[in-house]
Structures are given as structure tokens and as C-alpha cells.
């Protein structure tokens, strides 16, 4: 590999500040790395080299004037291709949006120029973020940099690969049931799902609106904190956006966890299917946090065993409603037919959606249909309430809950693609945070047979700074987030 990967923010900012490199040079390095690795990894769906170089040149001019915009100024970043940027494509990895160019900009993206970050491109995902392997992308899967025969996870697989491979130090993803945390864990990077409502969903291609949340992926908790701070805060364009100012989580990274109580889930001990190597790494990580002064106590969330069932009913119901907008009339693919309007809809959607999206639309339509609404959808929403109450009770006795991000390390491409339910079950440790609206971060905590393992830290609503502070304290004491894939 002629072009070494980009390091973390601290590594990039030091030479920028010293004048030994420029934002332009960083963006050029990012593209050199991208071009060398894309044939193997397929992390990106679209790139914007000229625009990025133009923005980097502006960042360099700002620096020479002494008018810097903050910790992200001149830093290249990547965006998941379901978060729109004005005048750029946004396909959601779906054939139905293959030729779409966004006329507007997501709030999270619109806040990047104010921070000085430079978007280099748009990353691969499972179609409309529905999946946990990127195998449901209409452009084919991304590859895990640690072992290219394996999945990077998903749905924000491309965003995790781009960071893991050193193409960019930071990226944006979206997390509906673990889609930031799971690929972060499987690719050995940090991924953070903020409290629901922290980051505006305006301009995020809607999947399940009560669960979707945009968040950062990066090389360290501190880097994720910097990006979260830049994109968070109230937005009048999203009626579920919290009426809170932008976060300042970066200032809360004290490195200190003494006095904090961490909850260890009894249900994780009882769970079948957690790989021994994953258990070992996560146990060791928790031991490290105890040595750093945190207290550990056992907590229980009895309803988490029903979380997957509730999640897939709620998520598909919301998806079936959200995806009704793809009708072949206002934007996106349109089937060539001389038939009726109904035929136009049916053919357009049959041609435009992939199998997993169709499966979820059908399930969601079914559970919302007359006669089934109470038995499935309403029941799932009631179980959601019970799960929320479990978390409230648990957080009465601890500041955060620590658990594995995933039960296993990265699986082989194709291994689970014939059995949708098997893939759903792998989301067992991540979906609860979405159902309860909680902040959660996954940090690398070692490897098992050469593949990364993720430690997940969940906090009560609004405790975004706390989970990042714990992850950062862990990273100050351990080298696991510094490990690089053998590319």
C-alpha cells in the first residue's frame, strides 16, 4: 500500500497547525487511499473530488487568515448515502433512487461547513438502511477491511469501512436498530448513536421515524464527540428534534470514571449464542473500567428478550408507511408502462425495491392492516413501553450499562443472506437502545481470532456525554481503538 491511511483527528490536526500539511493535502491523501482500496472494499457509492478539493482550498485560506472554524476545519469526512447533500446524488443504495439528485440538504450536513469539515463522498449501505451486512445494497456489499471475505456489518457498513481503512477519520451514519454501532464493532472503529432527537432527522431518508437517528463513526470517542457536537442541536425542520442547544460533549471527556456505576446485564450472561471470545474481550474491558474507578453492579432488563420481536414489528410498520412515497411520479425510478396508475405504482415499486425492502414493506403493511393492528403493532408498542420501564428501573441504580455490541464478530459474506430471521436475531444487543431512545456507543475492545470485538455503553436519555466520556476513558487506558486492519 503506497498511501498510508489517515489517522485520528489529533494526528491530522498537529501537522495542519504546524503548517507541515494542508487541508488540500489531506483531501488528496484521502482520495489516494480511496482509489487504492475501493476496488477491494467498495465502501463508496459516490465521490466528489473537485468539490472537496475546492472546499479544502477554502479551509487552507481560512487557516492562513487565522479564521479557523473549530476542530473539524479542513478534515475530510464521508456521509452515508441516505443523508442528503444539496446538488449531490442520494440513492439510499436503492434502484428506485439511482438517478436522484437532492434539491435540499440534511440539517446534519448543512452544519458541516460551519465546522469546516470537507465531504469527500457518500458511503454504501443496505438498501434504505434495512439490513445489518450491506449485502442488501443494490450496488453489492462492502467488504470488511479486517477480512475481505467477511461483511463489515450494516447498515452503515460503508461509513465504518471508510474509517477503518483510513480513507477518512470520521463519517456519518444512521442507526435505526444498531446500524452505526454494529458495523463500528465489526470493523474495529467507534460508532455512536445519540439520544433520539439530538440530531435532526431532516434530510435523512426515512426508514422508521420513531427509531432513526444520525450519528458519528470515527477512530476515537473524542473524534466522535467533536462530530456529534457539530451536528447536534434543535432544528425547526424536524418536529421530533429536542429543544436543546448543540452538545458540548468534547468538553466532558475528563478521562475520569471514578464515582460512576456501571450496570452489567444479567441477560447477557444468560444469552445463548454469545461467542466465548466476545464474552472474554467485553469482560476484560469492564474489568479495565473497574480498575479505573468505576463500580460494577448487576442489573436486569427482563423485556429485552422480546426486543427483536417488538423492533421488527414497529420498524417494518413505520417503513411500510414511509416508503409509500416511492410511487414513480414525483421522483425516482418509473416503470415503463402504458397501463393504469395502479399498474404504474405496482411495477415501479416491483422494479425499484430489492427483496429485503419488499419483505419489510409486506410485513409492515400486514401488521398495520385491518384485523392485525392490535395483535401485532399495538402489542409491540406496549412491549416497547415495558422495555422503557426496564431501562428506567435499571438506570435508577447505575449511570450506564455495559454489554457486547454484537454476539459474534464479523460473519462471512453470504453466510446469513438466505435466512432473514437469523440476521435479525444478531441485532439482539443493539435494538433496545433504539426502542428506548437511548444514547449508545461502541468502542473496540480487542480482537477474537483476528477480528474486532465491540464494547457497547448505553446511557439514559440525554446522557450522550456520559457514554462518550466512559468510552474515551477506556481508550485512554487501552490500545484497542488504535489497532489497524491488515490491509
Amino acid at each position, binding site marked *: 500500500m503506497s498511501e498510508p491511511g489517515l489517522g485520528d483527528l489529533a494526528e491530522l490536526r498537529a501537522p495542519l497547525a504546524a503548517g507541515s500539511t494542508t487541508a488540500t493535502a489531506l483531501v488528496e491523501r484521502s482520495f489516494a487511499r480511496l482509489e487504492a482500496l475501493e476496488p477491494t472494499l467498495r465502501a463508496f457509492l459516490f465521490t466528489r473530488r473537485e468539490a472537496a478539493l475546492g472546499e479544502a482550498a477554502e479551509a487552507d485560506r481560512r487557516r492562513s487568515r487565522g479564521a479557523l472554524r473549530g476542530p473539524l476545519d479542513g478534515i475530510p469526512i464521508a456521509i452515508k448515502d441516505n443523508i442528503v447533500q444539496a446538488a449531490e446524488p442520494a440513492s439510499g443504495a436503492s434502484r428506485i433512487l439511482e*438517478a436522484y439528485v437532492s*434539491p435540499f440538504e440534511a440539517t446534519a450536513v448543512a452544519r458541516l461547513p460551519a465546522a469546516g469539515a470537507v465531504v469527500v463522498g457518500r458511503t454504501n449501505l443496505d438498501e434504505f438502511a434495512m439490513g445489518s451486512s450491506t449485502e442488501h445494497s443494490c450496488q453489492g456489499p462492502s467488504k470488511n477491511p479486517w477480512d475481505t471475505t467477511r461483511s463489515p456489518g450494516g447498515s452503515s457498513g460503508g461509513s465504518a469501512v471508510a474509517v477503518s481503512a483510513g480513507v477518512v477519520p470520521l463519517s456519518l451514519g444512521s442507526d435505526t436498530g444498531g446500524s452505526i454501532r454494529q458495523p463500528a464493532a465489526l470493523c474495529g472503529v467507534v460508532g455512536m448513536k445519540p439520544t433520539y432527537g439530538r440530531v435532526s432527522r431532516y434530510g435523512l431518508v426515512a426508514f422508521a421515524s420513531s427509531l432513526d437517528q444520525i450519528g458519528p463513526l470515527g477512530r476515537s470517542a473524542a473524534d466522535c464527540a467533536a462530530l456529534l457536537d457539530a451536528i447536534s442541536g434543535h432544528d425547526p425542520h424536524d418536529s421530533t428534534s429536542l429543544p436543546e442547544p448543540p452538545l458540548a460533549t468534547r468538553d466532558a471527556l475528563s478521562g475520569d470514571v471514578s464515582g460512576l456505576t456501571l450496570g452489567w446485564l444479567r441477560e447477557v450472561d444468560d444469552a445463548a449464542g454469545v461467542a466465548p471470545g466476545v464474552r472474554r474481550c467485553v469482560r476484560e474491558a469492564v474489568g479495565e473500567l473497574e480498575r479505573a474507578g468505576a463500580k460494577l453492579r448487576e442489573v436486569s432488563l427482563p423485556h429485552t428478550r422480546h426486543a427483536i420481536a417488538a423492533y421488527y*414489528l414497529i420498524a417494518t410498520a413505520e417503513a411500510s408507511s414511509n416508503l409509500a412515497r416511492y410511487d414513480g411520479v414525483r421522483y*425516482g425510478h418509473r416503470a415503463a408502462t402504458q397501463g*393504469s396508475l395502479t399498474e404504474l405504482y405496482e411495477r415501479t415499486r*416491483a422494479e425499484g425495491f430489492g427483496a429485503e425492502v419488499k419483505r419489510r*414493506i*409486506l410485513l409492515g403493511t400486514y401488521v398495520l392492516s385491518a384485523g392485525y393492528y392490535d395483535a401485532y403493532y399495538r402489542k409491540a408498542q406496549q412491549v416497547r413501553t*415495558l422495555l422503557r420501564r426496564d431501562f428506567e428501573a435499571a438506570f435508577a441504580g447505575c449511570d450506564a450499562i455495559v454489554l457486547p455490541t454484537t454476539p459474534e464478530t464479523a460473519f462471512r459474506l453470504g453466510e446469513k443472506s438466505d435466512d432473514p430471521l437469523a440476521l435479525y436475531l444478531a441485532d439482539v444487543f443493539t435494538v433496545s437502545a433504539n426502542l428506548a431512545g437511548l444514547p449508545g456507543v461502541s468502542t473496540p475492545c480487542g480482537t477474537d481470532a483476528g477480528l474486532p470485538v465491540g464494547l457497547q455503553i448505553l446511557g439514559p*436519555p440525554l446522557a450522550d456525554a456520559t457514554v462518550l466520556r466512559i468510552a474515551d476513558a477506556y481508550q485512554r487506558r487501552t490500545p484497542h481503538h488504535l489497532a489497524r486492519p491488515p490491509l
Partner: protein
Amino acid sequence: MSRISREEVERVAHLARLRLGGDEAEAMTQALEAILAYVAQLDAVDTEGVPATAHVIPLATPLREDEPEDVLAPDLAVANAPAPRGTAFTVPRVLDDEAEG
């Protein structure tokens, strides 16, 4: 006992405006059958008197002053339309000529 029949899947597909190809209806029926069998575990959860959670963080519907703001320009609004006519979207004829007349 099967929870969902192929006919039911085809009915739901029509509700969702999805045309299923030859083998697709059968494959979807099998997949939905497996998923519905799994989620049936919720039947055993006692939810008597438990309110439903639609949104985890309850917020009142935000209101703002009724002042005009910039909106998407018409030419941009139709820029992604597959068959625009001027600044209009087009659809197949919905009413036949007689009904129109």
C-alpha cells in the same frame, strides 16, 4: 398451523402496491411465516393496561409564527420527476374520456 397464506401475502402486496413475480410470492410467504412465528412470542407478554409507546421522548407538536419562508422552487421540485411537464408531475390518465366528458 400456518399464520399467513400465499393469498393473504398477495392481498397485502396489492395494498402495498407491490407486484410480486412468479416465485416471489411463495418466497415472501415463507419468509413472513417464519418471522410471524418468531414474533408470536409477544402473545405471552402481559400488556394489560400498558400504554403504547409511539415516541420515546414526548414532545408537544411545535408551533411557529405563521410567516412565509423560502420553499423549494418549482423547477427544482420537479427536477427529479421521471416524466415532468413544465413544472407539473404527470400520471397516467385516471378518468376515461367518457367519464371526463
